[in-house]
C-alpha cells in the first residue's frame, strides 16, 4: 500500500512518488484518487512535494493521470521555484500538455506570496487545470496548517475510492495527516435512473438520491455520521451546490477525527474536489464505463452553462484553446 510505504520512508523523493504511482491499481474500484503533500520547512526555505493520481476503470481498462508538483518557497514566503513533473500525461484532448501548463503555472505563480489569502493562489481557474490548482492550493493551506502547529515537517496522504454498487456508489476515503488517520465512507443510493444528463454532459435533474456517510471507528465498525440526506435538484447548479453541501458534513467530520477543528482544504473530500471524483464515478456507473460517455461527463463538469471551457483539457479544438487559454499556441503540442 502506497500510504504505508511512503509513511515509512521519511526522505522519499519525487522519483519515489513517481515509482509508487506507476505501481498503484484501481483495487476493484471504478474510480480512485491517491494524493499527498510533503512539506519540509528549513530556516531559509520550504520545500513542498505534492502529488495526485486519478484512476478510472474506463471500458475495462485502467486509465491513470498522475500529477506531481514540486515547490520551493523562499524566506519571504514567496514562490521561488515551481515545477510540474516531466511525465505529466494530460487527461483529455491534445491541448492538455504539460509543456503549456507548466509554463502557465510558472508565469502566474513565481514570485507570488504563498498564502491561502492571496487571490492568485485561491483562484481555481487561473492555472487552467483543476488538478494543478488542487495541488497548489492544497499545499498552501497545508503549509499554513503546519506553521500554525509549529511543525517543521508535514505529511498528508489520502486515498479515495469509489465502488460501484447495485443502486449507486460506495465511496471510501482514508486520510492520514501527520500520523493521524480518519476513514470515512459515503454511500450514494438510488442513483441509477434517478439522474438525468443534458446534451452538454451536465446533470440537470436528480430525484430521491439517498446519501449517507459513516466513519470507521476503533472497534472496526462503520458508525453513521448523520442521518440519511435526500438530494433533489432541478438544475445543474442546484445539483452541484446541494451535493457539495451534503457531503461537506462528512468532510468536516473527517477533519475532526484528525483533530482539525477548522475547515481544511488539503483533503480530497473537500466539496469541490470530491465533486470531481464523484462526477467521474457517477458517469462510469451510469454509462457502464463507456469511454465516450465518461469523457462527456468530464466535458460537462469542466464547462460553464454558456459553453466556455474551464480547463484546457476539454477544448473542442486547437482554435478554442487559443481563444480561451492565454498564451497557448499550437507549438505547445510539439
Amino acid at each position, binding site marked *: 500500500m502506497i500510504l504505508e510505504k511512503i509513511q515509512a520512508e521519511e526522505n522519499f523523493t519525487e522519483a519515489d512518488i513517481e515509482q509508487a504511482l506507476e505501481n498503484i491499481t484501481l483495487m476493484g474500484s471504478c474510480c480512485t484518487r491517491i494524493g499527498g503533500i510533503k512539506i519540509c520547512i528549513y530556516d531559509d526555505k520550504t520545500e513542498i512535494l505534492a502529488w495526485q493520481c486519478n484512476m478510472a476503470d474506463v471500458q475495462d481498462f485502467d486509465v491513470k493521470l498522475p500529477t506531481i508538483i514540486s515547490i520551493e518557497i523562499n524566506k519571504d514566503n514567496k514562490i521561488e521555484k515551481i515545477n510540474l513533473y516531466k511525465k505529466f500525461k494530460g487527461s483529455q484532448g491534445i491541448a492538455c500538455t504539460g509543456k503549456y501548463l507548466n509554463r502557465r503555472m510558472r508565469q502566474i505563480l513565481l514570485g507570488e506570496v504563498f498564502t491561502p489569502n492571496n487571490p492568485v493562489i485561491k483562484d481555481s481557474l487561473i492555472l487552467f487545470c483543476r488538478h494543478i490548482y488542487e495541488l497548489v492550493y492544497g499545499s498552501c493551506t497545508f503549509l499554513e496548517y503546519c506553521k500554525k502547529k509549529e511543525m517543521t515537517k508535514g505529511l498528508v496522504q489520502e486515498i479515495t475510492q469509489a465502488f460501484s454498487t447495485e443502486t449507486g456508489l460506495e465511496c471510501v476515503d482514508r486520510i492520514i495527516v501527520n500520523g493521524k488517520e480518519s476513514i470515512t465512507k459515503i454511500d450514494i443510493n438510488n442513483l441509477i435512473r434517478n439522474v438525468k444528463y443534458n446534451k452538454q454532459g451536465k446533470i440537470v435533474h436528480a430525484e430521491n438520491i439517498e446519501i449517507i456517510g459513516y466513519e470507521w471507528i476503533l472497534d472496526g465498525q462503520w458508525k453513521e455520521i448523520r442521518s440519511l440526506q435526500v438530494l433533489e435538484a432541478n438544475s445543474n447548479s442546484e445539483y*452541484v*451546490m*446541494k451535493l*457539495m*453541501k451534503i457531503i461537506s458534513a462528512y468532510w468536516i467530520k473527517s477533519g475532526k477525527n484528525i483533530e482539525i477543528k*477548522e*475547515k481544511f482544504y488539503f483533503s480530497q473530500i473537500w*466539496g469541490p474536489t470530491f465533486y470531481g471524483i464523484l462526477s467521474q464515478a457517477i458517469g462510469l456507473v451510469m454509462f457502464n464505463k463507456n469511454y465516450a460517455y465518461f469523457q462527456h461527463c468530464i466535458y460537462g463538469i469542466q464547462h460553464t452553462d454558456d459553453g466556455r471551457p474551464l480547463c484546457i483539457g476539454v477544448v473542442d479544438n486547437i482554435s478554442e484553446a487559443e481563444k480561451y487559454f492565454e498564451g497557448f499556441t499550437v507549438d505547445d503540442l510539439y
Partner: protein
Amino acid sequence: MKVDYKEFAEFVCGRYGISIEEAEKADTFMELGMDSLSIYSVIGEIEERYEVVVDTDDITDINSLNRLYQYIRNKVGK
C-alpha cells in the same frame, strides 16, 4: 457579531476577483461568470468567517451579493 455590508462586500468580491459595483449590478453571481464550484467555495469561507451554517435548501437562492448579505445578516442576528 455584526455583519458590516462594506466589509462583507469586499470579502466576497475580493474572493471572486470582481468589483463591488459589478456585483451590485448583476442579478446573479452566474451572470458574472462564476461557476457553482466557485460559489460553493466562497459560501464555505463565509460560513467559517461569520460562524454560520447555510442550509442546503437555501444554497441556490443566495445567488447575488445582496441576497447573500441579507441571508448571512439574518443568520448572524439569530
